[in-house]
């Protein structure tokens, strides 16, 4: 019996239990020892990692302040910060779109950004209250499959996508945060009733082509699964960088000037009121809107537009100054509550 104990289930089970206890003890130990060293800040990153990684690497090199990056969807991060309250481990939040920052600002969770940092970015792309700073921008465009559609067939307004001719051809991402500014823009231009009517028609036209995100729209339109879609411009450039120009069967097109579908989305960053590293967090914000930080964005594979310190994109995109968007500001876009309510009424959310 004794010799057999090791090979019998008895011995194995005991070892399993002991190993379990050891692992649990070890994990508690690891958790307890997980404290931070010297100067470091924690960045809650809702931006694409393509943009953030290069910025963080350069900032760490320049300042010696290490940055722990936690990446997730911007709204999950915003919900998380709200739940964490005064104990939030986050020092800085960096989002893809302004509504998440407006939401946190309205909840009183953000600290004012230093005026010197705010001054780098044109005031219309910053928080009107000064609690977050605009870092980069994107613009909403049409993407269409060049085998399925000719440029002459394209709509000039986002409102025309509600026409019956787009039934079964349209793709959009109702649940994507990038779509909300367009809904807000339409609602402010034509009123909520018209916006809801328009959303209903979009839902009918898209049918099964309601996708989770812009990446999927871009890929599906490029492959011809859908003929036309609404995205932010940089997804198309990224797809091209990934699959190669030879495999691109799609193009982007702009809406008519000042069309409600022609919207500039601002990506920005703010500092949490609860942060215990205010000075270092301010340094990070000052860096991302500085000439150096903006040059990184200008040359990065994220294909976003730099908007601060007079830097222009180095990528082969329509120059930012040549865009003719609907002049709706970040304040009017707000925290997206109107858009969400409309999307819920249309049973899209």
């Amino acid at each position, binding site marked *: 019996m004794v010799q057999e104990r090791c090979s019998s289930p008895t011995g194995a089970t005991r070892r399993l239990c002991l190993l379990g206890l050891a692992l649990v003890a070890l*994990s508690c130990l690891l*958790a307890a020892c997980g404290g931070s060293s010297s100067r470091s800040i924690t960045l809650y990153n809702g931006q694409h*990692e393509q943009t953030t990684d290069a910025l963080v690497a350069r900032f760490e090199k320049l300042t010696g302040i290490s940055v722990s990056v936690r*990446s997730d969807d911007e709204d999950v991060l915003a919900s998380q910060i709200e739940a964490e309250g005064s*104990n939030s481990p986050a020092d800085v939040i960096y989002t893809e779109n302004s509504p998440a920052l407006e939401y946190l600002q309205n909840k009183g969770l953000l600290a004012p950004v230093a005026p010197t940092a705010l001054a780098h970015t044109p005031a219309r792309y910053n928080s009107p209250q000064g609690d977050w700073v605009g870092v980069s921008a994107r613009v909403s465009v049409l993407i269409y499959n060049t085998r399925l559609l000719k440029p002459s067939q394209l709509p000039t307004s986002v409102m025309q996508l509600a026409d019956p001719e787009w039934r079964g051809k349209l793709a959009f991402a109702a649940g994507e945060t990038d779509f909300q500014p367009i809904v807000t823009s339409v609602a402010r231009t034509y009123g909520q009733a018209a916006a809801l009517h328009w959303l209903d028609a979009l839902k009918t036209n898209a049918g099964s082509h309601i996708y989770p995100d812009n990446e999927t729209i871009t890929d599906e339109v490029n492959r011809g699964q859908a003929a036309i879609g609404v995205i932010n411009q940089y997804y198309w450039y990224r797809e091209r960088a*990934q699959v190669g120009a030879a495999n691109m069967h799609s193009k982007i097109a702009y809406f008519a000037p000042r069309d409600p579908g022609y919207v500039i989305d601002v990506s920005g960053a703010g500092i949490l009121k609860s942060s215990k590293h205010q000075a270092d967090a301010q340094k990070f914000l000052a860096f991302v809107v500085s000439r150096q930080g903006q040059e990184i964005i200008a040359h990065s594979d994220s294909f976003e537009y730099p908007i601060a310190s007079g830097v222009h994109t180095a990528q082969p995109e329509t120059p930012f100054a040549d865009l003719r968007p609907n002049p709706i500001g970040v304040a009017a876009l707000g925290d997206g509550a109107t858009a969400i309510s409309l999307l*819920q009424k249309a049973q899209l959310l």
Partner: protein
Amino acid sequence: MSTTALPELEPTKPVRAPAAGTPVPARRKAVPRALLAGGALVALVLLLPLAFLILEAVQDGWSTLHPLLLRSLTATLLWNTVSLTAVVTVLCAVIGTLTAWFIERTDLPGRKVWAVLVVVPVGIPDFVTSFGWKSIFPSLGGFWAAALVMTLAVYPLVYLPVAAVLRSADPAQEEVARSLGLGRVRTFCRVTLAQVRVAVLGGCVLVALVMLAEYGAFEILGFRTFTTEIYTEFLSGFDAPAACALSLVLVVLSIFVLTGEGLSRGRGRQSRAGGLAARVPRPHRLGRSRLPVLAGFLALAALALGVPVGAIVYWILHGGASTLPSVSILSAAGHTVFYSAAAGLLATLAAMPIAILSVRHPGRATGMLERSTYLVLALPGLVIALALTFFSERYAAGFLYQSTAMLIVAYAIMFFPLALVAVRASVAQAPPGLEEVARSLGRPRLEVLWRLTLPLVAPGLAAAFCLVFLEAVTELTATLVLIPTGAQTLATQFWAFQSNISYGQAAPYAGLMILIAAIPSYVLGRWFDRLPSRAQAAA
């Protein structure tokens, strides 16, 4: 229903003889206090997410929740969720039971290989399976696509408990039935199915609950259920009230599932004569049906394993460049293995008191206790993560928040029911008579547990560990919220690349996840395979 017709080892009668005239108490034993306390503690931790949802709902009030719940979208989601869950559960019950029977009870060629191959799909993340199908058939989507992909991804949840029971169940019952002239099919229906009924039901509950909480696969296939909607609410508007309201509907649905299972489980009890020694059963000869059965197994393996693995290999070879920065796959793999193994052990340990209570001391209270712990499986990972965040921040000043320990606890909570089903099934198979004899011989309770009960339930413990490990390897949404800042797992990296349509970069992560999952699947298969002979040698 089975136990009335078949011989069974009766438990030792209580020593105290009832006074004349008083009704005989139905095997009521005093519940050990330590066991009860342990079980209650585990149940309490497991009910935290539910408490969180109720607190949120109460805070928001009916006037906020009412317009979110009572609208046409809810009806659509309800229909999508319920019909898909029903179809997949039935398909899994059939496939899981049949594969287990063919592998454990027939002379199917290569049954040792099949025993591993049919389990491996449970280690392939559901979202990797759907990614595989979707990347090969881009227009795949909708109800039947979701049903197909999910069935192929989760049928092992039925196979595993059924195979475990068949492996250790007394083959004499089948042999007796056969020798009394019952045909093969009728023996299967009347004896074998009766033996595995509890295991099949347990597996079906797991499948149904996993279906309710599934996110990634449906997101990729574009099929809307309650859970995808809960995420969308969170992802597109920090709308906690809406997400919590929808989660409460999921809880109600899972209560229906559990009540249904409780009603149909009945009072049948399975244990065997002959103590610990499982006899190697004489396999049924398949004869002429060998080829079609083999073809069926091949088809199953091709669909459940071939498609996802093939897609991964294809994308590794043909993937394009990615604009996403690269990360260390080894560090991600290290985190994945460590978190999942720790969670597997924690969940298995925690499942013991509940399993013993529910089997050895059946009653309304222990039944409720056991069943309440299953609710958690139907809750999306995100809700569980937010619940832990809530309690940590609200009542403990952020204690352990985003620590390794909390992530492991979250995994253990999420996949606890998987551990419980496996442990419970094997506790139910161990004859209580032996323990009572040991106790009557004056052995202390702990020693009986350590030296007698543990070895008896060892295969169940191993199965429990492996199941939790396999599921934890693929966990995504709770991980994103609770993982220590800066750490990555294979699942989080896969998802980052997959969402960026960087399939070539995503594929190695999926491949490594499958490799890691294949090890416990293999161990699981081998363990069951060697158990009887080993037990015989020890006896």
